[in-house]
């Protein structure tokens, strides 16, 4: 049973949170045993948040110790090499607690601000996103875990045979590699995928560590989960190597009983609760809802372990 909390810091019409407020919230969630917090910062309209998700995550990494930290970052806003570097670096800063939430939905606002006024067609966007994610994962494996030798006397900092080029040449990108950031402490940062539609399912079940689904009913969630697991198996993965979390948006109080029965019938591995990022909502969640969720064993049952992968019970390495 896994538990994630999503904050869309950029959504309009909510409080502007400062770093102290956000970090206090995340630390309380950590104390309550929440597995991970997912920071998303893409808004349909203008955002009022002072922060961008990956920079905020770096700062949060230095004031938390166990909770997983996931940031959304779009495939339009960064070049894959730069994004791979950012997350690899975040993973080292957090001692292995970081994930990237790659959303497979195109945000037209982003296209308009990133020199793509017309955006991409759906098909192009999807093929581009798949290529992009593959590059990022490939770059994360540039260095073997034992590549760094630190041999001062012998004069070898790293083993040249344990550093790998990527040499990717695809439809949208050409990336030589290797990454100039060391191997992630959890092997590779956790890859979270969200915003999937039907056609993305194969890709997601092949590549993702965590999949966020947002089905409207327990039945639909059950069907989607079973489908994803089946596809993961077909792709040669252990079905339980993919965590499926049901995303639930809540206005104020999470309906504990409802969640409990929903979880039982959805076949999911846990929940991702989307909270409005304003102070009263966060306070209500940490002061009232979290203790109750915890008492009922909904939060705080994550496996123990230093990294986010270990916490989620995911094997090292993710999908290949």
């Amino acid at each position: 049973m896994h538990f994630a909390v999503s904050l869309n810091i950029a959504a309009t019409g909510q409080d502007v949170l400062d770093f102290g407020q956000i970090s206090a919230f995340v630390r309380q969630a950590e104390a309550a045993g929440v597995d991970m917090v997912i920071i998303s910062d893409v808004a349909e309209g203008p955002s009022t948040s002072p922060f961008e998700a990956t920079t905020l995550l770096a700062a949060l990494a230095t004031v938390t110790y166990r909770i997983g930290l996931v940031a959304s970052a779009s495939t339009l806003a960064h070049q894959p090499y730069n994004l791979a570097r950012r997350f690899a670096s975040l993973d080292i800063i957090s001692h292995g607690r970081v994930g990237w939430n790659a959303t497979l939905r195109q945000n037209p606002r982003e296209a308009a601000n990133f020199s793509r006024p017309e955006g991409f067609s759906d098909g192009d966007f999807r093929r581009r996103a798949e290529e992009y994610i593959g590059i990022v994962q490939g770059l994360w494996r540039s260095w073997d875990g034992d590549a760094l030798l630190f041999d001062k006397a012998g004069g070898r900092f790293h083993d040249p045979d344990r550093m790998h080029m990527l040499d990717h040449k695809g439809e949208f990108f050409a990336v030589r590699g290797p990454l100039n950031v060391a191997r992630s402490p959890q092997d590779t940062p956790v890859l979270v995928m969200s915003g999937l539609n039907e056609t993305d399912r194969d890709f997601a079940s092949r590549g993702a560590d965590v999949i966020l689904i947002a089905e409207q009913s327990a039945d639909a969630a059950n069907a989607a989960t079973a489908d994803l697991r089946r596809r993961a198996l077909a792709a040669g993965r252990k079905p339980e190597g993919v965590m499926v979390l049901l995303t639930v948006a809540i206005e104020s109080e999470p309906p504990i009983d409802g969640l409990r029965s929903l979880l039982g019938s959805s076949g999911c591995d846990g929940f991702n609760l989307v909270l409005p990022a304003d102070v009263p909502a966060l306070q209500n969640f940490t002061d009232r809802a979290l203790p109750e969720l915890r008492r009922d064993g909904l939060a705080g049952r994550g496996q123990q372990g230093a990294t986010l992968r270990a916490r989620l019970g995911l094997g090292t390495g993710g999908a290949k």
Partner: protein
Amino acid sequence: MTARRMKLGLFLWATGHHIAAWRHPDAHVTAGIDIEHYIQLARTAEAAKFDMVFCEDAAGLREANVNIASQTSRSIGFEPISLLSALAVQTERIGLVSTASTSYNEPYGLARTFASLDNLSGGRAGWNLVTSASPIEAANFGATGLRPHADRYARACEFATVITGLWHRKPAGHDGESFSVRDPLDVPPSPQGAPVMVQAGASDDGKDLAARTADVVFSAAQTFEEARAFYDDLKGRLAAYGRQPDDVKIMPGVAPIVAATKAEAQAKYDALQELIPDDVGVALLSSYLSISDLGRYPIDGPLPELPESEGMKSRQALVIEQARRDGLSIRELARYFAGARGHWRIVGTAEEIADELQERFEGGAADGFNVMPSWFPGELDAFATLVVPELQRRGLFRRDYEGRTLRDHLGLKRPI
């Protein structure tokens, strides 16, 4: 009217600036994967009242030859914006400046990222604009190779216009040669209004862009005369953009090695020099000269004639000038270069180092310095405990921060 005071930046570089720093017995060899190391360095610099820490960056390896690369510590490290974001909440006063490339980013994204760093730090962020001269980086962003110098600068100019427009809340909408941006920036301004703009390109294009946009300029110079000429040149370009000489702080790099006696300092330097493998030194020199095969020339012979680079024009010129001036062989030049990549090196006591810095500061060759410790943490500690107090005694450097933001430290106006 307070006396004019020196600005000091700490140029961070994992294990240190000397190419063999990582092999020093006390160097923190795991620096590139140890955030605590950087937090410690930033706090040391903050306790010494440095204006800022500065992170260089390249979106790729530094060295093409894997065998050479593996004999240096330069192939892995932190991505600097995430590093500085972590430092932002682990420090209180010191400025946080990161390099980011105009060639491999988009202005809207970078504007948001730096605005976020600026907000996280309470107004202490700065951006070092670079055009990225390395073909190794270029290969990570497409198959077409390094674009010509002039094209990179044209893109950089447009980038700077767009990003400052976004930071300064200019009306939205840009549709230009390289970029189109529809919306205004959606991150509220920080206490310093906008991140500080830094530039370090020293070609003609680079200096013009700096004169137009930069608050701080980094440079590399060996002699007083070179430093002075650069200073005059750059400050002289400001008027054309309606700016005053004091609007831009020029901070050349300096790599000091300090000890209680000159002999002791020299011995520290010599010990580091002993740790440089010849092929590593020559490869480093080659990369800054933008020549791939310097190794095929006799190592004890002179530097060959070189075609003008499409990479780092200014550094190439500086090195060639030094080789000719001092009549250095490739080996000698490479060994010297390995110490601080062409930046000014001073080996001596705190008084001697303070004398030299004072001379350039008061002689119109610098507004401050970008300090490049040979290895970390030892040479930073030595500079902070020996040289900084000497500069303070002479009234050349602050004893405490006067304000909160990086603009405050540098005496820069808040942008409107």
